Each structure stands twice: as structure tokens, then as C-alpha cells.
């Protein structure tokens, strides 16, 4: 009989400690976790700490190119990295629906381990709750993360130094994650499989920062997609943005699916994409640095900061027309006619 998660696994008693030892400690093993203290004790020598949290409820739990575990590590690592921080430690909290297969939990923990190793971070504390069938959908994960940040980079997350003639760079194809997850959810068969782009970007970002170029702003292009981030950058600011639709990297397959379902790829969520706003003169050099990293081979300069169109993000469409890009409001809805 397949082993499954039972309510008792969240009781705090023997079944819980068995689960912790046989799964979580086994996969996430490190000196801090081994001490099994109520709180992880961390020796961090820095003036400034970056701290973030995110919850993961993706449906389905496993999708082409990743799973909820991979997502839970990369999402939080990327939130730290785009703030200019070096991610160090993560927590992992699990809410599991009674009846969830133990081997699937192990598979998820294996992914967490693999991604944490890639991103060079440690899972140092965690929690498990089991809820009755129907009270959550299979498994939800929360991860929080701590990173250290160089004082020279503290302005990046607010984009305080963005100015006219700065350039915008995106590190590759947008929209893959949303389409991969939606394809898995709706059971759509693609001619060529579209994989989620979920990836830890701290290495790529570190490469860029280490190269010593002026980075004004970074943001990962998750929910709301590229369009929402562009609209946020210009909001209440005394500059505008112009991006060229032809320069935005989008896979043909993703474009095709967007045509069918009526999605605008600019609003699709990504899990391995970051928008850089950089000093205009440095843009070409930075682009080269990004393209040398495996998560940036398809990077492109997509637009620039302008003194015109104050507080507006403008898209120059493929046919040369202009339109405003605004934030995503609610979910993207499929068209009906």
C-alpha cells in the first residue's frame, strides 16, 4: 500500500518527529537544522539584512519544468536577490492535506534540496501541519528567506536612482511559467513541451553586480508579469518608459497559446525572469555578462527610460502604434468570442 500523510503526522507527537527525521532532515540536512532547536540560531555579520516571505499554492503541484518545492525555493531566493541581497537561509513551512502521498512529499523535498544547493542556501527551520481532506488542496508551502546586503546596493529595490536614458534588460523568454502550469492544469498537449522557467537567479544577479556595473533597479517578473512591473516603475515618478514589442523575447509556442486563449504574454507570470534597469552606457556590457550565465542566454535590451510620457509605460507595438501598459487588474480572463 502506498504510504500517505495522515492527520497524526501533524500532531506534534511521534509520527511528526518520524516524518521530520525520515523526510525533512534527510533532505535538508545541515548543521543548523541538526540541532533541532525551536529557532535556528544564525551567525550573521552584517549591518543590513534582507528578509522576505512567500507562500506557494500552485496547482498542479507538479508541472513541466518544476514542482511546488522548486518554486518555493526559487521564488524566495529571487525576491532576496533582486533586492541586491545575497540569500543565505530559508525556512520551509508545509501545510499538507491528509491523504497526500508520502513519495510525492519526498519528491518535493528532493526538489527543494536540489534548488537550495544550486542557490547555495540552507533550509534552517521548518514546520509541518496536516489538515483534513478538503481543507487545503494537496500541499501548500511557505518559505521565508534571509540574506545579507552590501550597503552599496540598498537603493536598488526602490529604484531611487533610475533616470532618463537608462536601459531595460530582461534575461530571456517571458510567459513560459504561466503557460506550462496552465497547460498542465488544463491537460493541454503541446507539440513542443513548454517548460516553466522556474530557476534561482541569485547567481546571475551576483555575476552582474560583481562586474561592477551600475544597476539601478531589479524586479522578478512574477504575478502580473512584465507589464505590471513596468507600470510600477513609472508610478508617481518623473520619468516614463518606452519598450519595443519586437525586442521582448517571447517563444513562438507561447505566442501561439496566447492567441488561442486570449492572454497577453506581457501579463503572464514568470519564475525565472528579472527586469534590470541599468545605466544606459553600461547596457551592452551588462547584457554580455547576463548572456554568459545559463539563465540569461536569451537576454535582450527591451527599452529605455524617457523624459517624455511622465509616469507612463508605453509599448511601441509590432506595427509601430503606441499604447499604454498598465498593471494587471485581477486575473487574465479568457475571451469568449
Amino acid at each position, binding site marked *: 500500500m502506498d504510504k500517505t500523510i495522515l492527520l497524526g503526522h501533524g500532531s506534534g507527537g511521534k509520527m511528526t518527529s518520524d516524518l521530520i527525521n525520515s523526510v525533512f532532515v534527510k533532505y535538508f540536512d545541515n548543521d543548523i537544522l541538526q540541532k533541532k532547536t525551536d529557532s535556528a540560531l544564525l551567525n550573521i555579520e552584517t549591518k543590513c539584512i534582507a528578509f522576505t516571505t512567500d507562500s506557494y499554492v500552485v496547482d498542479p503541484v507538479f508541472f513541466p519544468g518544476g514542482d511546488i518545492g522548486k518554486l518555493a525555493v526559487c521564488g524566495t531566493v529571487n525576491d532576496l536577490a533582486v533586492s541586491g541581497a545575497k540569500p543565505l537561509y530559508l525556512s520551509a513551512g508545509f501545510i499538507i492535506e491528509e491523504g497526500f502521498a508520502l513519495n510525492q512529499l519526498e519528491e518535493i523535498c528532493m526538489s527543494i534540496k536540489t534548488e537550495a544547493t544550486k542557490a547555495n542556501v540552507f533550509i534552517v527551520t521548518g514546520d509541518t501541519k496536516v489538515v483534513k481532506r478538503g481543507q487545503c488542496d494537496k500541499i501548500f508551502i511557505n518559505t521565508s528567506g534571509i540574506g545579507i546586503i552590501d550597503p552599496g546596493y540598498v537603493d536598488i529595490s526602490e529604484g531611487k536612482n533610475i533616470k532618463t536614458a537608462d536601459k531595460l534588460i530582461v534575461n530571456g523568454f517571458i510567459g513560459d511559467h504561466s503557460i506550462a502550469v496552465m497547460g498542465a492544469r*488544463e491537460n493541454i498537449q503541446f507539440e513542443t513541451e513548454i517548460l516553466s522557467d522556474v530557476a534561482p537567479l541569485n547567481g546571475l544577479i551576483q555575476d552582474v553586480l560583481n562586474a561592477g556595473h551600475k544597476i539601478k533597479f531589479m524586479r522578478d517578473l512574477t504575478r502580473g508579469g512584465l507589464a505590471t512591473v513596468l507600470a510600477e516603475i513609472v508610478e508617481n515618478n518623473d520619468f516614463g518608459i518606452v519598450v519595443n514589442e519586437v525586442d521582448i523575447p517571447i517563444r*513562438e509556442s507561447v*505566442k*501561439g497559446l496566447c*492567441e488561442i486563449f*486570449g492572454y*497577453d504574454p506581457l501579463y503572464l507570470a514568470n519564475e525565472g525572469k528579472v527586469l534590470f534597469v541599468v545605466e544606459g552606457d553600461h547596457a551592452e556590457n551588462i547584457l554580455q555578462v547576463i548572456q554568459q550565465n545559463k539563465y540569461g542566454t536569451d537576454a535582450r535590451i527591451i527599452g529605455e527610460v524617457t523624459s517624455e510620457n511622465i509616469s507612463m509605460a508605453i*509599448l*511601441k*507595438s*509590432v*506595427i*509601430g*502604434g*503606441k*499604447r*499604454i501598459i*498598465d498593471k494587471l*487588474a*485581477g486575473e*487574465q*480572463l*479568457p*475571451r*469568449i*468570442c
Partner: protein
Amino acid sequence: MKYIDEFRDKALVQILVNKIHSVSKKHITIMEVCGGHTMSIHKYGIHSLLPQTINLVSGPGCPVCVTDRRFIDHAIALSKRKDIIIATYGDLIRVPGSTSSLELQKAKGADIRVVYSTLDATKIAKDNPDKELVFLGIGFETTTPSSALAIIEAKTSNLNNFSILCAHKVMPPAMSALIDEGIKIDGYIGPGHVSTIAGSNIYSEIAEKYNLAIVISGFEPVDILQSVYMLVEQIENAEQKTDIQYTRAVKPEGNLKAKAIVNEIFELRDDWWRGLGVIPKSGLAIRDQYKGFDAEKKFKVILEKTIEPKGCICGDILKGIRKPDDCKLFRKICTPLNPVGACMVSGEGACNAFYKYK
């Protein structure tokens, strides 16, 4: 994308734009009837390419936008019954009813499911034999055939727990009604998908009666600009008629098979259009011999009093006589997150397109 990129070709677009600029002399108003065109025009920034002589306005061709508030109230009332599952196209669930929306009812526990086709709806009915499945049938000639097919399928497979709450409408009467109301329109960009099913002949009478230029258009920028060019030429030369730009999909007689299926299941009735009121023979009712699949007849529910939102000018926007930013609520109270009128909900609604892209 093969067969799509050709219709977004910048050089071709430029040729058409130049032609339009050189031909257009009279100040004219062109209405795009279909919501798909509205979206495309905004998405590609087509307004910014046209000369000032051409005023492009959006019409009543977004099925969600013209759907009566009472229909939403009716769907909400049905969704409150524990034995009913509602299946609907996604756009409808956020449209406000008089006091609630399907989205709110869903959050409160009603079983409301978003589907992409009627096939999904009949499958849900099959998988839940102890429940009643009500599909919310909205849309024009484009979506009606799939509703008709679903009823035929339900009948042949004795799927007696399937029914449709029908608000399907037909396009030409609304196009006439706008002109009858005295709204000044020189030409219509005719709906592409509607005409793929219904054909272009259905507009001949309107073109002749009102001396209107009508060009059935595809949805890509080159399609739309070519259609505008054809319309401008017709109007400048005083040769108004129905013409097809979207020849790769539309035939004068339409899709005869689809039309036959629709005719088998539905019959014309007078119908209420948001903003336009009652238009004779503009809606479709399920024929009496299929009344077992008509949710309106199958379930008796008490409807709350319909309350129309104050200050919302969706009606005038659907007629093309006012623009979204003429509305006091636009961007302030009415946003895609908190839509007051249906035009703000649907991705094809004029207010939504205007909000997103302008």
C-alpha cells in the same frame, strides 16, 4: 507565427496607413461592432496611426457587456440552489448583478465553474449525475452553435441534468437599432467571427436601407487597417455596400451547417440589451420541443429587483456616443478590479480596453 506575423507586418501596415491618409478627406465615424476588434485596435495602438478625419468608436459587440443585469441576477439565484452547478465562460463571473456577482457567490460556496467550451459543461453534467448543470449561454452567432450542439448532444445521450440559461443574441438588429436611434455612423467594421458563422449577406439589408458602408474584418492590425481603407474608399466614392476583407474565413452565405443546427434549437425573440433596451427579434430562445434543456423553464426561482448602477454610462458607451473617459466613474470608482458596469469587466469591453491600453 506563420499566418499571423504576415498580418502584423510593419511595412504592410505603413503602406495601408499611407493609403488611408491620402484617401481620407471627409470627417467620418466608423464603429467596430465586435469586442475582439476593440481589443486589437487598442492593443496595437491603431488609433495613433489614423488621420484625424477618422473617428473610431466601439460598439455593442461584446457579449458580456450587453448582457442584461437581470440575467446575472437569474444566474445568481440559480447558483444559490444546492442541487445546481453553474458552468460559465470566465468573463461573466465578475460582472456585477444587482447586489452580488457570480464571483462573490462562488466565494460564499456556490458551485460555479469556469469552462472554455460547452463540451466541458456537458462533461461536468455527465460526471455529476446527482446534480443539475446549468450552462450560461451568452454570445452572438459565434458561440450559439456550440450551445446548440450541446443541447443536441444532451438530447441524444439522455443527459437530462444539463440545461442552458440562454441569453444568446444576434447582431444585425442591434446594428440597425443604433442607426434608428439617430446615432451618426458612416460605416461599420463588421464582426469577423459572427460573420464566419452567419455570412456577410445578413448585413446587405442594413447597408442598403441606411446607406452604410460595412466591411467584415479580420482581427489582426493589417486586417483592421485594410478594412478601414476599404470603408474610407466606399464612403469617399459614395459606393456604400457590404464587403468582406476577412475572405480567408468569411463567405457570403456563412457556415450553412452551423446555421442549420442553430435554427433547429433556437428561435428569435425580442431581447433586452444593456444600454439599448428591448430590440425586436434580437435574441434567441430555446424552442419549445427542447424546453427540457431550457433552465429558464426548468427551474423556477425568485429574482430580486433589478438595480441599475447609478452614474454608469455603459449604455452610451455601447452605442458609441460617449467614450469611457467621459464617465465620472471611470478609473475612479469603476476599475477592472471593482467594475461597476460590464464594459469594464470583459477583456473585450470598451472600458476595459481603454483602461488597459490608453
